[in-house]
């Protein structure tokens, strides 16, 4: 494996010693199988501490250890705590690596959970973009529910004309849009135009029409194609008003945008403070990421970052960051659980809340919270 994504100030040698010590104690706590796996990791990788976290996370979650799957395991931010749970000594490993690209610093493990720390942060507004099939909906749905699970008000906003987010959220209802009655015609300089009906604010529209989802998520679809194009247009212009008046204080918004570089992505994502490009380790995904970054830059200065998805090799996450030219905020391993959830049409979070991809999204939620906090 190459340089750990987050860059660890711990020298390979020191880390190695730490790992050996941990492995010895882990042997007492978790049995020889795990300790053996840790030893193997330490031999293979020059950043064994972060890999150790991954190994332990997988073990703790009851998964068979898969050495090749988790890639740059620094993605599993927050597993440091699991490690602490196991070893009972929170300060043993000096650093945890947050996969935040070059801007990120490895930092001492803190006693407080990243997710708990997040609760102090104001609401975040994130929009998931990327190539079709990169995993936007899967990640966005999981992200929204994990965020809601921290006790926040979360609006999961689906403006992808293709279905997806309802499934990844585990919301049974796939049509959760605004009714036509929310829209009224008016005369604008001699032309017929459309707006939200009199007295209906964007916030009220959300509160009134959003579907209640698992973990307290509020789910709303805007911009869905419900019929031929000319039937959608009027409502769509009106629905866009909602985006300018989303619930503010104390609310987080997690948006799932259309795949690719469709022109409206900035229109429908204009509430976002952060565009999260979901990119696989493939050239088509990188090219899409570069195009999205270019378009976003022309529009102003929303923060554009990348999350590597379906990573298989240890250097995949770093490669995705390099080839898209975007700062990396997380990496999600290739995970058969996601494919299975897709096949069953259910939320990956409901199928297996401890699977590697969900663990990684948990880290992503924490990482974005951190970025925001320090911004």
């Amino acid at each position, binding site marked *: 494996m190459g340089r750990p994504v987050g860059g660890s100030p711990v020298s390979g040698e020191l880390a190695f010693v730490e790992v050996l010590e941990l492995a010895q104690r882990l042997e007492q706590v978790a049995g020889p199988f795990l300790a053996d796996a840790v030893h193997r990791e330490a031999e293979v990788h020059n950043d064994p501490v972060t890999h150790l976290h991954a190994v332990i996370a997988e073990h703790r979650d009851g998964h068979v250890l898969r050495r090749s799957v988790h890639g740059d395991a620094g993605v599993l931010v927050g597993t440091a705590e699991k490690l602490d749970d196991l070893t009972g000594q929170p300060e043993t490993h000096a650093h945890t690596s947050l996969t935040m690209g070059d801007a990120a610093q490895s930092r001492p493990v803190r006693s407080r959970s990243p997710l708990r720390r997040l609760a102090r942060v104001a609401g975040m507004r994130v929009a998931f973009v990327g190539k079709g099939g990169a995993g936007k909906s899967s990640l966005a749905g999981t992200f929204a529910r994990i965020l809601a699970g921290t006790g926040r008000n979360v609006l999961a906003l689906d403006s992808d004309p293709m279905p997806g987010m309802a499934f990844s959220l585990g919301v049974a209802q796939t049509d959760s849009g605004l009714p036509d009655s929310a829209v009224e015609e008016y005369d604008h300089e001699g032309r017929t135009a459309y707006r939200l009906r009199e007295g209906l604010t964007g916030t009220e529209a959300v509160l009134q029409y959003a579907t209640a989802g698992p973990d307290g998520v509020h789910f709303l679809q805007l911009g869905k194609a419900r019929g031929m194009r000319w039937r959608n247009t009027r409502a769509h212009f009106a629905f866009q008003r909602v985006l300018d008046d989303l619930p503010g204080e104390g609310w987080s918004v997690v948006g799932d945008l259309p795949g690719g570089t469709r022109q409206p992505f*900035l*229109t429908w994502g204009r509430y976002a403070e952060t565009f999260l490009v979901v990119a696989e380790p493939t050239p088509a995904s990188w090219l899409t990421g570069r195009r999205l970054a270019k378009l976003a830059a022309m529009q102003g200065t929303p923060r554009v970052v990348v999350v590597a998805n379906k990573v298989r090799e240890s250097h995949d996450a770093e490669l995705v960051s390099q080839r898209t030219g975007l700062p990396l905020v997380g990496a999600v391993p290739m995970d058969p659980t996601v494919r299975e959830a897709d096949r069953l049409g259910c939320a990956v979070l409901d199928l297996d809340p401890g699977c590697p991809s969900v663990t990684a999204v948990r880290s992503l939620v924490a990482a974005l919270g951190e970025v925001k906090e320090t911004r």
Partner: protein
Amino acid sequence: MKIAVVGKGGSGKTTTAAVLARTFARSGHSTLALDCDSNPNLGISLGIGEQATEDLLSVRDAVDAGDQEHAASADDLVDRFGFEAPDGVRLAVVTAIQNPQPGCP
């Protein structure tokens, strides 16, 4: 014959289109591969590479750029702005989104 490949994101449209195009070309048909996706990646699947795909000028941009005649025929456009892909496939990118200004919703 004229075939349009459609479907949900990630279901394999581009890959399918590329394999179809190269298969037809190999069996002796003159084949035009049209990338109508606003995020055009067909070049990658046809095998011309990531960089060449990124550098492809869309027909629309070429026409908008100025000195080409707007009334050029479709054949002429494909000749002028098409790109040679493996197995003799002619690749043309119809349009790519180049600016972030809102268009249709």
